[in-house]
């Protein structure tokens, strides 16, 4: 297998010893089919035990290894070295505080994910003995795309609005709320409305669409947010009609 020697510039920051983040360069002989994560593993094993980053599955599904590669949010396991030049710049995801090196603090996202009530709220509890809820393939398709989010947070890193105002609920959490709202088995939209349709929710999105562009799983959070805006606007208008709940 042919190898190419690449300079990997990694943003380093160890809060106990570094005043501020700085770039450190490593020379890595990369196999032709390596991903950037493989290069980081090489650095960790062969060159520098002090480099920290998150990773696990190496197959685009656990969502651990989100990083910024040459300015673009990427999964480390899906950024192929062959698509880059002889110098690759690797940074932690944007819009999150750096914990250490490529590891960012994601507590804010976890709180937002928890805030949208992301679980099925059925009309009435059904007994297990009565079997499954029926759901046609078309009904499944209505939300399936929005259930594919791996919480890798590339979308938060790319989102200009989240960068400006961290109170914005943000793409992945809003897409997840939409996933349950669109599920034929669910009636929980009202319960999610407080967060989703609040000032910090969908209305803050300026529809740049960067989230959908960087999403490695084609979830299309921007589309989810736009669709939610439409339903919420209709709700708002109909609430003034006779029989409305305003």
């Amino acid at each position, binding site marked *: *297998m042919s190898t190419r020697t690449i300079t990997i510039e990694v943003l380093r920051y*160890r*809060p*106990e*010893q570094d005043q501020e983040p700085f770039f450190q360069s490593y020379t890595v002989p990369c196999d032709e*089919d390596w991903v950037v994560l493989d290069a980081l593993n090489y650095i*960790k*094993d062969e060159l520098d*035990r*002090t*480099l*920290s*980053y*998150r*990773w*696990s*599955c*190496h*197959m*685009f*599904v*656990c*969502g*651990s290894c989100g990083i910024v590669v040459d300015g673009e949010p990427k999964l480390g396991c*899906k950024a*192929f070295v062959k698509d880059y030049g002889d110098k690759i710049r690797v940074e932690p995801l944007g819009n999150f505080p750096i*914990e*250490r090196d490529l*590891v960012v*603090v*994601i507590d804010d996202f*976890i709180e937002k994910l*928890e805030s949208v*009530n*992301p*679980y*099925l709220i*059925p009309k009435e*509890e*059904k007994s*297990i003995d009565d*079997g*499954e*809820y*029926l*759901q*046609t*393939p078309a*009904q*499944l398709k209505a*939300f*399936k795309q929005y*259930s*594919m989010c*791996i*919480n890798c947070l590339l979308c938060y890193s790319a989102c200009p609005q989240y960068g400006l105002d961290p109170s914005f609920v943000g793409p992945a959490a809003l897409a*997840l709320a939409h996933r*349950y709202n669109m599920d034929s*088995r*669910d009636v929980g939209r009202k319960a999610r409305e407080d967060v989703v349709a609040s000032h910090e929710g969908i209305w803050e999105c300026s529809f740049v669409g960067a989230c959908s562009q960087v999403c490695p799983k084609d979830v299309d959070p921007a589309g989810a947010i736009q669709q939610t805006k439409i339903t919420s606007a209709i709700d708002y208008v109909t609430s003034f009609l006779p029989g409305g709940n305003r």
Partner: protein
Amino acid sequence: MDVINTDIAIVGAGGAGLRAAIEIAEADPKLNVVLISKVYPMRSHTCAAEGGAAGVIKANDSLDYHFNDTVGGGDWLTDQDAVELFVNEIPRELTRMEHWGCPWSREDAGTVAVRPFGGMKVMRTWFAADKTGFHMLHTLFQTTLKYPSIKRLDEHYATDLIVDGGRVQGAVCLEMSTGKLKLVKAKAVIIASGGAGRIFPFTTNGAIKTGDGMAMAYRAGAALKDMEFVQYHPTGLPGSGILLTEGCRGEGGYLLNKDGYRYLQDYDLGPATPEPVLKSMELGPRDRLSQAFWHEQKKGRTAASKWGDVVYLDMRHLGEKLINERLPLVRDLACSYVGTDPVTDLVPVRPVVHYMMGGIHTDIDAATTIDGLYAAGECACVSINGANRLGSNSLGELLVFGARAGRHAVEHIRTTKPAADKLVEKQASDAEQRIKLLFERKGKERVSVLRNELTHSLEDGCGIYRSGDLIQATCDKVSEVRDRYKDVMLEDKSSVFNTDLFQVLELGAMIECAQTVAVSALERKESRGAHQRLDHVERDDVNYLKHTMAFYNPNGDPRIDYLDVVITKSQPAARVYGAAAGGQHI
């Protein structure tokens, strides 16, 4: 040291741990649950399971069929009371997942769809396209958010169990973001920390699968059972070891050798029919398919590639629509990693380490031999998998036995009085001292070097086919690595997210697990399921219809003992696949 008091601590927040947590929260909302995990729950390796979860639901199926498939598939090393209970309970568990929102793939009428899977006589595998584990994990994680009694310690690495007065009293864990040690005092502990596939160099398992929980229970005195049984999945991508689900073959994919020949027909799995037949050919069990690759390789009928020898997975005849609908991740992975599109190209594959049939010995209530300690999921061995797990039984296992672990932990708390806990603080401070020592000591052995030597030695001696002399060499190597580990070097001395430290601790766990695999393999002088010995080629029911039990020995090889297999209604017989197995035609 910070002390957290709780009722039940769970180590591991993958499928089994999350399922256990929900069970406890539903059984008694007043009980406090602390869920300790070295990663955020959605990073757990359950997410990587692709194909599905088997459970009898259709009219042409029966619980007896699922029982017989599982017992025979496990080469009669399964405990039949456990299998019976498992096949009974799993359909309800899968339905419960549906009620919690799991996006199962559907039939036109809206009922849950099932797909064919290896070693199963009829179609019974529920699936969510080819991301079943991912959807189950996220559904379970999101469902736990409904229950305020479940508190999470995300990114906390559990280092030690606390056992005092013959009873488990909690666990010690390290907060990864600060390096601070915490003592979680609990009346019961459930280990649900997954397998140890990373003890092999070529595996589908994620980086986190280092056997931490298995080793923790083992060091505390629990037996590791049947550790010699390591599953090779027949279709991994060469180079990376990435899994291509058995669903590829379930949907009708072929395995071809370098001549384009469906070679499985030469290994008592035929005849080769164009349409899939269950329990035949590509839908045979994983052990037999991986062994067939080995024989093809010996015959020179595998193809050479830049990643070594491969065979081919042919899905071209399935068509783009079906592949996009049912195998989208497979297409993405094959295109990205080996540059072949299953719609138009043959995809190179080879066997890859995938699953540990063995694990912490438990009874059918998920209870270990340590009072108050439970285990469920891949880290446990109950045993429903015996000598070879059937694909799509593990996702069901983590639900059924995760729930049982939760239920019985609650029961345990209700019925047992508090025990003496004089030694709890002392044990916690011992754990602290061990870590402190790593920071103070100089050390000269590098983690990556030791890990490399360990994993390659396991592949050499405990691969698809094994022999006494090679296993012995592996045992010797593992002992040597275990000795050298005492002088392991911690190069990063910082407190904040010190991944050097976690890799050092993980390597310690890997070495313990590896030693039980090698020594158990050496002692089992027969061939059964995934344990094939070239120097003992026959199954030996007289001497080895038994579970291997490995017990911790700090100063040498584990002590090996044996436990009888539970047989209720299926007497050991020959495993039959191919036409004679009478599998469903699709």
